[in-house]
């Protein structure tokens, strides 16, 4: 090999080596670029997922707080309704206690607006009329016996034969009228009248007591 030829081979080999190394470096750069691109995608995907997690947690926390608020508000409204209902119930109970007390006072002859003997006469005649009997027995409180005796006499003048029953009944006032055989009774007591009145008129009383409040 001549000197010129040797120089030419050296130049060729250097060029080939450079080319091989250049290709390798280009390939290496491409591999790095691809890895960096992929890494960036991974981080971006993670950030998106993190945002979704935070959004979802925030929504859940807000929903739970709204539910808690609704629960507390609802419990307060129930408590408020309970306060009002309890108050109305207590006042209604107090009202009917007062009515009961007034009826008891009337039966004791302590209320000048009412004549208890007249009431007993009216209730007894009404009972006899409903039973359709010419002879009836009157049952009342033990302490009303003498009043009932007077009523019996007055009923006689009205054409009704009446007697005072030996048995007393535990009532506030009024009378129970029965036939001679005690097969039928007509209850015209204060207790029964008050009970029937309350059943029929309680809603009306509630309105009259609390209307406008």
């Amino acid at each position, binding site marked *: 090999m001549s000197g010129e030829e040797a120089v030419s081979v050296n130049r060729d080999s250097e060029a080939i080596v450079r080319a091989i190394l250049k290709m*390798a470096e280009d390939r290496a750069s491409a591999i790095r670029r691809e890895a960096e691109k992929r890494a960036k995608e991974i981080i971006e995907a993670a950030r998106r997922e993190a945002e979704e997690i935070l959004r979802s947690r925030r929504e859940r926390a807000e929903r739970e707080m709204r539910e808690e608020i609704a629960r507390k508000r609802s419990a307060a409204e129930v408590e408020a309704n309970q306060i009002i209902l309890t108050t109305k119930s207590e006042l209604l109970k107090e009202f009917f206690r007062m009515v009961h007390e007034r009826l008891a006072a009337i039966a004791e002859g302590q209320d000048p607006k009412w004549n208890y003997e007249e009431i007993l006469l009216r209730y007894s005649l009404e009972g006899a009329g409903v039973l359709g009997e010419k002879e009836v027995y009157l049952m009342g409180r033990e302490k009303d016996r003498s009043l009932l005796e007077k009523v019996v006499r007055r009923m006689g003048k009205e054409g009704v034969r009446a007697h005072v029953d030996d048995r007393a009944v535990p009532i506030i006032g009024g009378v129970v009228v029965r036939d001679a055989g005690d097969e039928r009774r007509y209850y015209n007591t204060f207790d029964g009248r008050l009970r029937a009145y309350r059943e029929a008129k309680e809603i009306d009383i509630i309105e009259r007591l609390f209307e406008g409040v």
Partner: protein
Amino acid sequence: MPRLVEAIMEAEKEAARIIQEAEKEAKRIIEEAEEEAKRIIEEAKKTPVEVSVMEDVDEEVREIVERAKAKAEELRKVASERMSYLVDEVVREVLEGEWGGSS
């Protein structure tokens, strides 16, 4: 010629080493990214979330109950005023109305 072949073989070895290094680095880059991604997600799971619901429900609850108590007081006052004449009316209705007399 043997020197040319030898030079090319050396160059190919070096090229293989360069690519292997790049591949190792790429693997490291991706592994680091995956670690970072895990950290980001874990942090999102643990970070305290702030809730923007600003209602002061405890105050509202107190007001609801206080309003009911005030209304209950008003009911007591009004009912007490009405009771005295209503008792008279109801006693009259009980004694004179069509409520008694069950047989």
